[in-house]
């Protein structure tokens, strides 16, 4: 089975924010939340680089391991999803995520930060359906239709790559051979260390065929 990943080529990103816009529009992301964002380092100075960052869908996802209600799961494709029904909005996943991917509809935490929202790799929710109810909660499920994430599809310079990890790594390597090694593939080996995690228990709400590599054990 393919293990899907993201790679943002910082040498090519021109900070057009197309990925940010299309993601927000396609999934009707809640107000105040941006699943994907473009961060510009050394803005205005020599060596300025822009990186498009969203959830990296890590191997051994830290968000999944710190969640107090274990609401995350990782599909056999490697996509890290979470259940908004179980989420209690405590904020721990944001504290653990190196990339700051989880976002919350409430800025304060007086009883809860609200249901966490993050990039789903355009794969919708944990039950892998394409219903209007699921769309309202999680956004569109493109992966179920065999399509890749929209942010990478719309990238104007093909800086943002999404798909099978081996294929996009090869593409990136060819680019580097062509032009020389400049900036790093941000977060690549932070996100994708090899670390198998355990399978979920029998009381889980997640469908059986969706639970292979799962963060269901701390």
């Amino acid at each position, binding site marked *: 089975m393919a293990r899907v990943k993201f790679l943002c080529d910082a040498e090519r990103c021109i900070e057009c924010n197309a990925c940010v816009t299309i993601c927000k529009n396609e999934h009707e992301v809640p107000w105040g939340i941006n699943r994907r*964002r*473009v961060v510009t380092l050394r803005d205005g100075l020599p060596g300025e680089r822009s990186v498009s960052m969203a959830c990296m869908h890590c191997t051994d996802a830290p968000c999944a391991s710190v969640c107090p209600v274990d609401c995350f799961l990782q599909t056999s494709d490697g996509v890290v999803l979470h*259940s908004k029904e179980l989420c209690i909005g405590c904020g721990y996943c944001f504290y653990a995520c190196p990339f700051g991917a989880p976002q919350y509809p409430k800025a304060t935490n007086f009883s809860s930060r609200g249901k966490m929202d993050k990039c789903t790799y355009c794969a919708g929710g944990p039950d892998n359906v394409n219903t209007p109810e699921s769309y309202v909660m999680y956004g569109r499920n493109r992966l179920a239709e065999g399509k890749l994430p929209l942010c990478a599809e719309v990238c104007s310079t093909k800086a943002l790559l999404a798909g099978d990890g081996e294929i996009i790594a090869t593409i990136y390597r060819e680019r*580097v051979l062509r032009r020389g*090694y400049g900036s790093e593939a941000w977060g690549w*080996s932070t996100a994708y260390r090899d670390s198998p995690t355990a399978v979920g228990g029998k009381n889980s709400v997640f469908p059986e065929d969706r639970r292979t590599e799962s963060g269901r054990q701390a």
Partner: protein
Amino acid sequence: MTRTILLALLLLLGLAAAPFDVAPPAFAQSSNEATDRGVHPNPSRNPSATDEELMRVLGQERLPPDRVQGNVYLPDRKLGVLIQPQGRTWRDFRVTGTRWIHGILLGLAVLAVILLAVLRGRDRYRTDPEGRRILRFRAVDRFVHWMTAVSFILLALTGLNFVFGRTLLQPWMGDGAFSAMSLWGLSVHNAVGFAFLLGILAMAVMWVQDNLFHRVDWVWFRSGALFRKVHAPAEKFNAGQKLIYWGAVLGGLALGVTGVLMMLPISTVGVNGMQWLQGVHTVLAGLMIALIIGHIYLGTWGVEGSFEAMSRGDVDLHWARTHHPLWVEDAYGRRRPDGRFEPAE
């Protein structure tokens, strides 16, 4: 003519002998399929790494030592943080460290209580034959104590759910029920925290005078009254109780402050600030729970007659003279040799 031909031959020979290079050797190419698809390394640009070196560097890429922050054209400024490596440290602390710390502290507390109960036994006293009693805690004292105590129990249970709930409760409760309970627990924890904080502040103001350490407290410590059945001199609160007081007040204030700060928007203190607050909060909470376990034991079964102080408000006079003689003297004046009391004034 012959010279020209010879020169031409020489030239040809020279050309034949010279090594032929279509392109200068840039670096070794490890895959041929790349070339087949028309990918040629650009020889005029000086690549800064070979293929192997690139793969090695990509594989070894480490988290930066500190967070990397840039500009983001979105109103939520905290999105400008690209990578924060401290999350990995906090993740290990939360998953492993927290459970060990709480487990050890709770275990030690329970063990200490059991040892005290078994080895030292219940601390008894002879009741006053005339049944005289002396007022120890006024109504407002008891109200504040119980408000703080009830709050603390609720906070401890909902807080421990964050630490142990996923491993101990979720498997048999099921996801839906456990999540609903945890959501309720989070709301209760955040709201009751204010009641706890109020109680602690009231205690800090009301009882601070009686909990200041004096020379007699060193005598109490040296006598080993904590472990052995001796009754060393003590004021209204003995030295051990004063320790618990200060632990509870200072720890409780710190818990309250860290708790309230964690409820503010993340951008107020930053994600690293939140990690630090959570760490301090959970460690102090573990210590406080252990402390209060000891306090509950001593205040209920461990020292006979002490629970009445907080439930009724007054205590047996002999109990008071046994455990807090200096307090009785202050309240009732000096005790004459024949056992009667002189008036304080």
